[in-house]
């Protein structure tokens, strides 16, 4: 008889999910599954609409990373028009994506994850949240909130509104960076840098205390995927796809993101609406890969900016070959904030961002277009097929949380194997399982393209498929 454990709700994750933990005959954890039970209707809903509307529609998939969908969508539109967008437009889109990286990573690190490893696993959930963090370390919490605001400010300066800015369009962007906006960003940068350095120092200090977590929070071999520049430098909007394995070797490089279906397969799981992509040549389960900050740093050879590169070298030393512990997603996130800030700073000295030549114009030159961009959570693909008139016939989206799904299952299984004994899941163990998932900063509403919230449940299921324990935490 094997048993299954389910956690509910995984608080502080955008969207909702269910976790099943399977036990074998002897009561040991054999496997785990993190499934999302949401209706997936978004891709169907877009059919028949003009492709030019997609940058306005797709940001609605997810209120957490609308900018990523906006940018991927605009890129897919560029591909349908078969245009090279004006250089200034490319820089401006990049600037917005960097702002998005900063705001999203700051949210993940300071608001969602830091309470766990700064306040401790055994702190009750009522206190183990951003309010608890404010009580314990007001300055840090406040600085974190301000850092997130800085990222949001950049998005707002460019897009006009914090949420759902339909500012990037097929062919380019709608408006340049104003002088006033430039000054506001410039003035805020020193504070943003200071906060990031504080967070990095703090994280490295607590890392020692969390050796065990580094060992068992999703520490397993897998492939990693991300965009890189031709010379292997970290990339976030543009570039080509690279896969590396857990020894750190590059197994495929400079793959055309537009031909993703030649190297990414999508397994549909019966009990989840989430698609689980894998590296096609290796199949399931060997083709399991991770995306997002940890993966991007694993595939990259350098960050391309001096301060981030200094940290990057320390980061690389944490693995033999690749850095395989998902707990280090947090570290990777901070390094990405740092390189984003450095890149933002460089753009502030670039007059081209004020250019008025921002939008290429063209008709329908290709009936299919794929747009790829690195969202904070991982590589995002928008794949559109249109008719001669530019009306959408087919839409396929591959999102970060979907790509990390197989790895998230393994992470939960690994944590459960270490902590779950018998039919009980004590509170601190629940906290750890929850955090294991939070390392990936999953955005569930996005991965299933649905709206609404549903509670989350942990179920312990025995070898006979019987639910022996069900924990719903509200």
């Amino acid at each position, binding site marked *: 008889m094997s048993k299954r454990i389910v956690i509910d709700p995984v608080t502080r994750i955008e969207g909702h999910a269910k976790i099943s933990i399977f036990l074998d005959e002897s009561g040991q954890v054999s496997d785990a599954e993190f499934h999302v039970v949401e209706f997936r209707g978004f891709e169907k809903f877009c059919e028949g609409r003009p492709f030019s509307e997609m*940058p306005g529609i797709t940001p*609605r998939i997810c209120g957490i990373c609308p900018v990523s969908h906006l940018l991927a969508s605009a890129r897919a539109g560029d591909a349908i028009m078969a245009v090279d967008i004006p250089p200034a437009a490319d820089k401006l889109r990049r600037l917005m994506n960097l702002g998005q990286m900063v705001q999203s990573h700051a949210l993940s690190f300071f608001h969602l994850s830091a309470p766990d490893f700064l306040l401790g696993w055994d702190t009750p959930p009522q206190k183990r949240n951003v309010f608890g963090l404010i009580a314990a370390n007001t300055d840090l919490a406040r600085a974190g909130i301000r850092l997130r605001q800085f990222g949001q400010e950049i998005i707002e300066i460019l897009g006009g509104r914090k949420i759902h800015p339909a500012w990037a369009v097929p062919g380019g962007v*709608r408006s340049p960076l104003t002088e006033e906006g430039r000054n506001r960003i410039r003035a805020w940068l020193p504070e943003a840098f200071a906060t990031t350095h504080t967070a990095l120092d703090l994280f490295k200090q607590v890392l020692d205390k969390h050796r065990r977590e580094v060992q068992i929070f999703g520490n397993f071999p897998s492939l990693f995927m991300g965009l890189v520049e031709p010379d292997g430098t970290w990339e976030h909007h543009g570039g080509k796809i690279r896969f590396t394995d857990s020894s750190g070797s590059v197994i495929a490089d400079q793959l055309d993101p537009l031909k993703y279906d030649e190297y990414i397969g999508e397994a549909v799981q019966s009990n989840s609406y989430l698609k689980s992509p894998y590296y096609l040549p290796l199949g399931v389960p060997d083709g399991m890969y991770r995306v997002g900050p940890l993966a991007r740093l694993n595939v990259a050879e350098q960050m391309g900016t001096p301060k981030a590169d200094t940290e990057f070298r320390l980061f690389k030393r944490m693995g033999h070959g690749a850095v395989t512990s998902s707990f280090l997603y947090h570290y990777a996130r901070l390094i990405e904030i740092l390189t984003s800030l450095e890149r933002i700073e460089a753009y502030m000295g670039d007059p081209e961002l004020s250019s008025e030549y921002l939008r290429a114009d063209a008709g329908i030159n290709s009936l299919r277009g794929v747009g790829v961009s690195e969202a904070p959570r991982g590589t995002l693909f928008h794949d559109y097929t249109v008719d001669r008139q*530019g009306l959408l016939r087919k839409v396929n989206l591959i999102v970060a949380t979907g790509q990390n799904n197989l790895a998230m299952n393994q992470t939960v299984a690994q944590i459960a194997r270490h902590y779950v004994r018998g039919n009980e899941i004590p509170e601190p163990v629940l906290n750890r399982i929850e955090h294991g998932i939070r390392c990936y900063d999953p955005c569930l509403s996005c991965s299933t393209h649905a709206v609404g919230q549903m509670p989350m449940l942990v179920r312990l299921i025995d070898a006979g498929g019987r639910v022996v324990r069900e924990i719903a935490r509200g």
Partner: protein
Amino acid sequence: MAAKTLTIDGKQISADQGATILDAATDAGITIPTLCHLDGVYDVGACRLCLVEVAGINKLLPACTTRVHEGMVIKTDSERLRKYRRMTLELLFAERNHVCAVCVANGHCELQSLAYSLGMDHVRYDYRFPKWGVDNTHTLFGMDHNRCILCMRCVRVCWHIEGAGTKNVSGRGSGSQIISDLNQPWGTSDTCTRCGKCVMACPTGALFAKGATVSEMERDRTRLEFIVTAREKKQWIA
């Protein structure tokens, strides 16, 4: 032309004989909500948003097509009128598929701004979710029937300002639709001169410049006004 004197909202005003209640009110600085009315083309009284109360007449009358009479006493605003106007708007929203958040006209739409200003905060009728398509065959413009309110402004400017006669209405009732020529894809029309007047005239996101994304359709009606004024004042006749 003989002048008529009348009272609108308690204000004594005079208007030319033959003027509509809407003209008279506008001259007197009184705003009546309208949707199908467009300066420069004749009125058809299609939307019923401009309904007003006239003393001594039981039914409500459209201000855009009712001529002034001597001694008329008119009310342009009352609880009853507001109720009817809201209802009319709700019916318009329920009839087709309006998703303002992702619409090309969002923020610049006459239907949407009327809904705001008249305090329409929900729709009491069941949405009909009809299946309408998008005609994207024209090289410059697109037409999304989902957002059309059948005000026929496009038809009127097409026939009476441009003189092309491309746009027409087919069908009946809520199944009516704006067509091009003999109900063919707009892009295959022989008569369309690609002038864009219909796009400028449309109050909603139904007609748009191709490639427009959310909120991008801001209409420049001054161009239409310029043509109408020039024609009325015979500015083009030497």
